[in-house]
């Protein structure tokens, strides 16, 4: 045990896998914060959230300059296999940039992209107050709060899309143009499909054909969240306390984010992400952002969202077959493919 670590962690009832994470986390933190003493990591818990990254919450306590400090933190660790492969260095740069731009996001404490101390790349960040649970948000008795949160959800997306990304410190040196944004987005996921597929996918080939034949011109180029939806923001009462999971952020057509928001999977009845009906959602987004939503372009990005999600399902299947992860989630990722293709079928008239 490192010299500046405390004696014992709290009593835990979980498996040796989490004991291993605990030991490595303590060793890492002791090394990363040599100025502190009596460092204790307690309440380390694997969170149920997170398909693409392993998420843990924990309490960190230590003594610094004669004073006792206590912090609630989140560890986000890359699994060896996933449904989507992203870069922790990119995600952390985006988080820092949007934080500087005024968005409510967690502060990053530590970033390790080499993966030595905890076996795979990871980030340690501030645990923000609130919950991300769709079950809480979608509950009948939460309807009043949901209406307020919904407006804020749209306003924050509009704020992100109208940020001047050209002056931000972002890891995207090669921005697309309004003419190439859609083509580039499709090409990226086509490449992923070719790399990840275990068998031929005639349906996805037809989807690709449709997407290539219907590429829209973007109204502008914006910084995108990439996975903006229910479950990826924290809320408390009627307030959004943080927007999380920025690993898919990129530059592109702002309607790309909107297409993802409008996915059938996050809907509650006929309400987008449980908030507003389609027309009202679009009206509020246009009002907050000043960006016109072309309905044909939105249809393209909704189709693209279902296609992209389908590629993630294909990637999860490969992760299981190639034994890249012991995460049981990926064993059912292929079950999402047919329902996602069914959404694409509606757009294509199949």
């Amino acid at each position: 045990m490192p010299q500046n670590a405390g004696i014992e962690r709290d009593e835990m009832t979980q498996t040796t896998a989490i004991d291993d994470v605990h030991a490595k986390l303590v060793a890492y933190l002791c090394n990363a914060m040599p100025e502190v003493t009596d460092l204790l990591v307690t309440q380390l818990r694997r969170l149920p959230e997170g398909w693409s990254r392993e998420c843990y919450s924990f309490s960190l306590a230590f003594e610094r300059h004669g004073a006792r400090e206590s912090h609630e933190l989140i560890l986000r660790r890359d699994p060896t296999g996933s449904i989507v492969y992203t870069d922790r260095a990119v995600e952390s740069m985006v988080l820092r940039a949007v934080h500087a731009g005024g968005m409510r996001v967690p502060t990053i404490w530590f970033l390790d992209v080499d993966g030595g101390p905890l076996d795979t790349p990871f980030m340690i960040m501030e645990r923000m107050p609130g919950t991300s649970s769709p079950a809480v948000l979608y509950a009948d008795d939460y309807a009043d709060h949901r209406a307020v949160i919904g407006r804020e959800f749209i306003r924050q997306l509009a704020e992100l899309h109208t940020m001047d990304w050209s002056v931000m410190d972002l890891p995207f040196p090669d921005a697309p143009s309004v003419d190439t944004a859609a083509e580039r987005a499709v090409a990226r996921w086509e490449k992923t499909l070719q790399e990840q597929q275990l068998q031929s996918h005639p349906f996805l080939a037809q989807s690709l054909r449709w997407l290539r034949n219907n590429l829209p011109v973007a109204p502008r180029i914006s910084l995108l969240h990439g996975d903006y939806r229910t479950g990826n923001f924290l809320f408390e009462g009627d307030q959004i306390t943080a927007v999380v999971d920025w690993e898919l952020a990129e530059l592109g057509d702002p309607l790309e984010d909107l297409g993802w928001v409008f996915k059938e999977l996050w809907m509650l009845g006929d309400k987008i992400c449980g908030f507003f009906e389609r027309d009202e959602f679009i009206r509020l987004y246009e009002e907050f952002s000043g960006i016109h939503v072309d309905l044909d372009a939105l249809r393209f990005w909704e189709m693209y969202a279902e296609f992209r999600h389908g590629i993630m399902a294909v990637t999860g299947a490969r992760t299981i077959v190639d034994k890249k992860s012991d995460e049981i989630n990926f064993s059912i990722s292929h079950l999402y493919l047919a329902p996602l293709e069914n959404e694409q079928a509606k757009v294509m008239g199949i």
Partner: protein
Amino acid sequence: MTIRPNTLELLEKLDDAFRKQMIPLLDDDHAKARAAILVQLIGHLHQRVRIEGECLWVEYAELRELLSDCGSVFPSIDIAGALEKASAVIRAEQYPSVPLLVDRNEILRSCLVDVINALDHLPAETRGLWEARVFVYLRAQLDRDLLLSTSPALGDAAGSAELPLV
């Protein structure tokens, strides 16, 4: 001889034990969420055992019919070669196991991808016709895939993982 309990009966027992005896004892959120996924997986396996072979059999017949019909329309694609290769995967005297059926269909699925990618090279007056033929197959196959992806509720508890995929 038929081994009893059969595979479906064993999966039903596994599902029942999981739901009634193991999941109620879990108090960790992560463990509960993963157990819900295991239950979904058992339901999916039940469905696979029941209908996968039949689905693959019908898929092959439909693919073969579609590709046979469009053989002369796409001269740059070796459709005849794919059909012949697929026929050779399972010999007449051989038991057509699920892995062999999958291998056979994959040859034709790959060929259909080439056909789909070539649709836009057809003259406009015939493109619609062949697109419609391909769409009929894609719809039928998607319906089979939807059926295979369904996790029937085997027991008396809800089996949703309650986690979106991302």
